[in-house]
């Protein structure tokens, strides 16, 4: 390729010819002096010399200089090693050279074509092509194409041949399905602990910050019940329900699939952190086993991580994140069902009531003086659903024990028999409830047809019904039992396979790739691309692009044989890569810690609003007496079901 001084010289000569009038001095403005860039007269009439080696040395030590060196060293390594590498699946050097020659010939043809179409000469167009690649001649262009092909081929080969180890790093697990302890990970590369989540969203117009007196519309109430009813019904798949009913336009057409949710994905805190909290803590992985610390770390929580909850001028109060999760997502969540010990639950019949009375703004000609907030759908929404942490849906019917007791406001719960075909009973031939231990008792909770538990959560968008198609823990040796059903678990490596079903090494079973069954192979290929892109993403390893450099530097071809012209350069590049990874890692940890902090403080306030104000929530009983003319006064000013909103 061209030496830049020549190109500058040529252009400068041309410019000089146009500007000869400026040259009337016999003293040249620029003179040569060995090892010196400029000399200047100091304040004390001393001479100060800015030396060439000093300035270039400083540049070399800077991050910009390090990048320049990195590019050049990588090029030298590839050019040196490629012809000598004997790697299965890598195109031979001769093949690439032939391809490069073809590209040169093709460029000549392009020059010919352009000369014809632009009414210029071949020489002119050929020069343009050379210039565009900063090349001087044909041999230069050949070398340019050759390096480009070598680099691309080697990068692709590296990604393909290291897919398993990359995937393990990405997944944060080892070959035995165990979670990789933080200390054993590649230095400062953050595993992303991906989840594969599907969801159905029912958008709500209720104010996201109103934790006790929100109002939802008739259509939203209807939609909530429609979604839950179909999720219960075993004749529909979760994917079908999402495709048909979800309000999330982004994932609806993908059957509810939100793609791979990693630690870096920007989802609502309720969605992402809600899943983490459910999986790691609420579902019981908080035992004192040796891996606990790493489980927390997987979710960006160190056991010792604290949230600054209060400060005074003399004291700072910090609380552990893990303690606050349990406190604000379980202990302090109270609904008419009662208090919880593992995870809040919502009876399916709440959705049923909300949906069935959605349009009943007036019953028997009666309407509440408080307006919509005292309508049954909103009373139930606020009492049972308006909290921003995960919940499970049970198969229970609710009833109010005493329609005059607005203070205790308690409900009775009975399991619903969906198989009972008796008239008036809500009958479903095959329901999707599975049994699991919740809050110290065996309960039936809503799952999909495959036995994957469905997790509900209220976010600022509305209510999500989330399906954890693949939890990062579900297939590890941590034996997370919650909601796994009875089917055999696919390994994480196989789940995130980079083969398509027609490939010989495709693992079969449930994978990220085959979420949808189709004859369209391009669908599977797109899914594989999604996984590969994730693995190559700088989100995963900020210094991913440097892995090829590290690989080549560690090759036997150069190991212990390579010497850098400037001894600092190798150290600088290594330090640069290390810092890049470390900075990203620490920054990402801080980012997720900040998310936990804001989420938990919001939940604390939410629970305070719902629990600390006795008239914050309209009694649940009001939903059951609405329309009863004998109880009409309760909905007027001064009544138990009246609020000034």
């Amino acid at each position, binding site marked *: *390729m061209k030496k*830049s*001084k020549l*190109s500058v*010289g040529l*252009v*400068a000569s041309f*410019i000089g010819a146009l*500007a000869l*009038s*400026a*040259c009337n*001095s016999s003293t040249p*403005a*620029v*003179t*040569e*002096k060995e090892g010196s860039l*400029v*000399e*200047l007269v100091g*304040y*004390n009439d*001393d001479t*100060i010399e*800015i*030396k*060439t*080696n*000093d*300035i270039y040395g*400083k*540049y070399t030590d800077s991050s910009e200089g390090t990048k*320049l060196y990195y590019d050049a*060293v990588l090029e*030298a*390594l590839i050019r*040196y090693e490629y012809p000598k590498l004997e790697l299965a699946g890598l195109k031979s050097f001769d093949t690439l050279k032939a391809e490069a020659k073809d590209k040169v010939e093709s460029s000549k043809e392009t020059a010919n074509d352009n000369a014809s179409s632009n009414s210029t000469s071949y020489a002119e167009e050929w020069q343009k092509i050379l210039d*565009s690649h*900063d090349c001087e001649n044909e041999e230069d262009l050949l*070398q340019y194409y050759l390096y480009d092909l070598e680099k691309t081929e080697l990068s692709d080969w590296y990604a393909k041949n290291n897919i398993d180890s990359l995937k393990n790093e990405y997944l944060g697990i080892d070959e035995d399905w165990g979670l990789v302890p933080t200390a054993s990970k590649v230095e400062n590369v953050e595993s992303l602990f991906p989840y594969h989540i599907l969801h159905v969203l029912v958008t709500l117009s209720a104010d996201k910050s109103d934790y*006790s007196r929100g109002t939802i519309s008739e259509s939203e109430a209807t939609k909530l019940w429609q979604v839950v009813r179909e999720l219960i019904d075993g004749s529909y798949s979760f994917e079908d329900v999402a495709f048909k009913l979800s309000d999330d336009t982004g994932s609806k057409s993908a059957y509810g699939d939100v793609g791979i949710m990693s630690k870096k994905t920007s989802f609502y805190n309720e969605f992402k952190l809600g899943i983490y909290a459910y999986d790691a803590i609420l579902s019981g992985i908080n035992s004192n086993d040796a891996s606990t610390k790493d489980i927390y770390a997987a979710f960006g929580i160190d056991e010792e991580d604290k949230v600054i*909850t*209060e*400060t*005074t*001028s003399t004291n700072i109060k910090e609380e552990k994140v893990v303690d606050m999760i349990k406190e604000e997502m379980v202990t302090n969540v109270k609904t008419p069902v009662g208090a919880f010990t593992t995870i809040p639950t919502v009876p399916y019949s709440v959705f049923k009531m909300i949906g069935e009375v959605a349009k009943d703004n007036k019953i028997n000609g009666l309407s509440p003086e408080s307006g919509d907030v005292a309508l049954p759908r909103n009373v139930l929404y606020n009492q049972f659903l308006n909290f921003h942490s995960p919940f499970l849906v049970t198969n229970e019917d609710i009833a109010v024990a005493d329609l005059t007791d607005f203070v205790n406001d308690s409900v009775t719960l009975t399991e619903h028999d969906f198989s009972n075909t008796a008239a008036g009973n809500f009958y479903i031939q095959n329901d999707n409830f599975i049994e699991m231990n919740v809050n110290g008792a065996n309960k039936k909770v809503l799952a999909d047809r495959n036995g994957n538990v469905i997790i509900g959560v209220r976010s600022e968008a509305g209510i999500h019904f989330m399906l954890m198609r693949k939890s990062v823990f579900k297939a590890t040796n941590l034996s997370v039992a919650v909601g796994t059903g009875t089917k055999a678990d696919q390994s994480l490596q196989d789940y995130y396979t980079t083969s398509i079903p027609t490939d010989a090494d495709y693992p079969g079973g449930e994978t990220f790739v085959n979420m949808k069954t189709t004859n369209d192979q391009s669908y599977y290929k797109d899914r594989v691309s999604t996984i590969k892109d994730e693995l190559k993403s700088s989100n995963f390893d900020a210094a991913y692009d440097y892995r090829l450099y590290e690989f080549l530097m560690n090759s036997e*071809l150069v190991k212990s*044989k*390579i*010497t*850098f012209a400037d001894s600092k350069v190798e150290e600088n590049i290594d330090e*640069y890569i290390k*810092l890049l990874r470390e*900075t990203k890692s620490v*920054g990402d940890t801080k980012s997720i810690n900040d998310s936990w902090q804001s989420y938990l403080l919001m939940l604390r306030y939410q629970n305070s*609003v719902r629990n600390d*104000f006795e*008239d*914050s929530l309209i009694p649940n009983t009001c939903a059951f007496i609405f329309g009863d003319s004998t109880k009409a006064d309760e909905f007027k000013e001064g009544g138990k079901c009246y609020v000034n909103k």
Partner: protein
Amino acid sequence: MSTNKKGVRLAVLSVIALLGLTACNESSEVVAKPSNYDDPIITITGNEDEIHHNVLSIIYDAMRESGVSSKVLDESLYRYASSVFGYYNSVTLPEGVTDVVTLKEAAKDVEANAGYAKAYKFIKEHKAYWYYNEEGEHVKEDGTTVIKDGEDWTPGTTELGHVTAKWNAIEARIAEDMYSRVSSGSYTTKNYFSEKEFLRSLHEAGESVVDYQTIDTFTKFIIPYTVEEDEVFDLFDGYDGAQHRVLTREYYQSSVSDDANAPEATYIEDEIIPNIYNDLLIEQYLLDEDVASVRNSRARKINVLKIEKYSSFTNNADMLVKKLVEEIYALPVSATSLETNQEVIEENGNKLFEKYSIIAKGLYEQIQANDDAKQIVDDLHALASDIYEVETKQGQSYYKSTTYGDLVEDYDKIETVLAEKKFDLLSDTKYTSFTSSGTRSVKEGFEQQKIDIMQAQNITKGWYIQSSTPTLDSNGTINDRLFKLSVANAKIELDETNDSEFAAHYADLAKADRLVYEGGAWKVRDEASEDENKFLCSINGAYYLKFDGQSAGEDWTNDIVYDDGSAYYIVQVFEAAKDAKLRNVSKDNYAHTRGQVFMDEVIDEVAKIVGKTGSYSTLSREHWLEKMDIKYHDQAIYDYFKSNYPDLFD
């Protein structure tokens, strides 16, 4: 990459061509090459073949085309500044530079007061520290004997003072610069500052600081508003009763550590010193080329207390300001105790205003902890029972009708309603203010607002110039009066080192003072003397700005109080500079009355402020580049300078 480089190159050269700026020798471009320009980037043992493109020239050419020229410009300015002021310390010495005395060594030598060998050598090599007369001639300590070129001399007190003052100024600026980097709030959560976060951010940016992961002694604390910018490395008493430092200097500059094995950290030398030297160069330009802009800037060093008269506090404010005026006029304890030491006057003034600031805020605990403040409050309460009346609510004692008292009462109201658990409270504006719209508890909201009151700035102090004034009263009256020339004339400087002059000045001061010693006792003059300055008065050696009328009552002595309708202001003037006080050789200059170091420090402060106004930064750079008379040994650098500073090449 290559294409882009070429595009930039062509564009730059095209511009040069249009301006007719090309170098005259077109036949071959001069390129300054590093000594290993043609060496291979890497060599591999046993390899005989040439690796295409494996030559350092590829990298050096790319550097030359992208950033080398701007680095040469920066380096030229920094090296030039080092030539002016001397290298800061041994860490900042360029490679190959030896046998020089650094500023640090010279300053330590002056401090050691033992022969000054290093200081003398340093001064002789740096004419910025020489003593000049008004004609710009280098003079001996007597201020008149001109030292001829080549003549040897022994630097005197003035020149040694210049060294000490410059060192002190740079040390103060290091602290101020570091303070400005942590005061953005980026490293503070709920008012608690974390040095760890700051250090981490620098570490991640690749700066040379101690690795934060090796330190396990970090704590979080509130930085009290009383911690000055130049105290960022000093220990202070925290609100929590413990002592803290905002920053630990050794983490950023290992050269100040006593531990020879301290981990290397050169952040201050790498990043802060070049910035400071750049600023100093601007200021040196002012002093060399436009000294009038410094001398005539009407610089004032002030201390202003503002006591707001908001609705519930109006009565307390009236009483408080009267009490303050009374205290200012408190009579000296003996016949010779008229205070003349400006440092003591400043310290007393700061303490006085700080005390009244705490009282104005009504911070019960702080008042109780300060005997003087408590006595004042008790005295006021004795005058009228509803003034500074103590009350206790929610376990918090407070003085009614004060900022803090109002806060406690609001807190009590909210807590009372909160106890009733009435939902309507949630929409109460005070409730949302306490909870910051639902992000904290009411209790914490109270504590945060209490901290806000503690940290509120009722006092404005420091150096200001007429063209860059602080925002004080709503009418601009203080600024109008503060920068009158007359203020500087009225501020009498005392020469405590000269007995006879001191006596004369003391007599002047005593004559001008509102406290007079007559008939064996001190008293306040019956009324202002006819020849008293219209803008400034002296009370027990301290100077206060005067206003028309008597804001705080009918007594004429209250004319030191300004009332803009919503607040009272009292302005203490510590220093009021003028041309004569800042001239190098003058009987009336600060050096003469207050010492050379003091004068240099004033000039440094004033030049620093003036240098940040107008276009001095650009003018200074052009000036120094011209002075440098640069010889170029690389065409790209020449082109860069010519393109950016065309006037230099006219």
